[in-house]
């Protein structure tokens, strides 16, 4: 994705995200039908059922202190329901921007990237299983789309912060991560190879 370092202009970010989501949509083969099925799965639930789903997911997530950190005070089932409403009931490009805004909101509350992905995955997989049958795969495709948009959004924000805070450019950082990964792999091969 281009323009990772420049978050000064929010309209540009929104445009970049819309381009990104189209690319991801093509790769995953996500159709409008998939989004529609997700929306239907959510809107077909009663308010009680929505509260039950968001409450259950939140309860499990809060039981994972390593992933949630100190953000538990700010997260409520009502907030999750609001986020799900935004994700499930918007369309295409707008949905990507909404997912981005939902992600930065969660990050601003102290949630780690893994926890955000878990939150969305838990909610969507519960919805998928409630919907059942072939719809599970429709919703799984949207889940994969959401993951990609969330990760790319997170990196967009993180790269901007890193460049400011450390002066290390994202490109240099990627090269360093690559070299470090190779080093760890070689060490793992030695350790695991030796039993």
């Amino acid at each position, binding site marked *: 994705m281009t323009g990772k370092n420049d978050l000064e202009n929010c309209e540009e970010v929104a445009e970049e995200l819309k381009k990104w989501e189209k690319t991801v949509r093509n790769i995953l083969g996500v159709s409008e039908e998939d989004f529609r099925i997700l929306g239907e799965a959510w809107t077909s639930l009663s308010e009680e059922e929505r509260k039950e789903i968001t409450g259950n997911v939140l309860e*499990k997530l809060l039981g994972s202190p390593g992933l949630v950190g100190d953000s538990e005070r700010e997260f409520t089932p009502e907030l999750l329901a609001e986020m799900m409403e935004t994700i499930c009931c918007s369309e295409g490009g707008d949905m990507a921007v909404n997912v981005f805004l939902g992600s930065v909101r969660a990050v*601003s509350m102290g949630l780690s990237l893994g926890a955000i992905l878990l939150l969305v995955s838990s909610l969507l997989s519960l919805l998928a299983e409630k919907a059942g049958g072939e719809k*599970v795969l429709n919703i799984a495709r949207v*889940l*994969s789309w959401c*993951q*990609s948009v969330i990760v790319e959004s997170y990196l967009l924000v993180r790269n901007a912060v890193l460049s400011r*805070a450390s002066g290390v450019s994202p490109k240099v950082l990627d090269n360093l991560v690559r070299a470090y*990964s190779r080093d760890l792999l070689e060490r793992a091969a030695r350790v695991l190879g030796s039993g």
Partner: protein
Amino acid sequence: MDEELYKNFSEIKRIGGEAALVLGLDDDVFKDFAEAWASLDLEEKRRLVGEAVSSLLEAPSVVVTLKRAGFSEEFLVEHFVEVLDALCGEDSGDKVVKVFLGSLAALSISLEVSAMILLIGVLVTLVAERLGGAAGAARLLGWCGCVMSEGYLMLRDTVLARAGGVDPVLVKRFLEVYSGGCG
């Protein structure tokens, strides 16, 4: 003994364990997926992974560094067949460590974390579509995404702390403040 490596393994195991609990992911889901994968012969595995890799390579912005590094489509197909074999093998031991090692392998050949997550998304849904086992597909996808992204950030924080002397906790605080401004 490689202390740093064991520290990484131990951290990713903790995260993978917590993620599985949150998602309600049990061994049966892994077993279903592994059985579906094992039912394919090598040619079918190559065809399935080839389909996922081809669709990924059609998006130049996703894999620009990969192409620049000169990795062929054939190499990538073989590579990811091996990664999935390792993940699904009966004697594969700890799945979390396998996913982490698979991520390391992908990162080491210039695949970006977002491309990695996309690829696993395409593969899991393709396997589920063709071979059934759809019920756990969404949970499995969620789990892989969480382990991969947290594994990536763990490496990135280590590299940052070494390269720039930046404390990851400080970066997290900056991120929270900056994200508040974005919203």
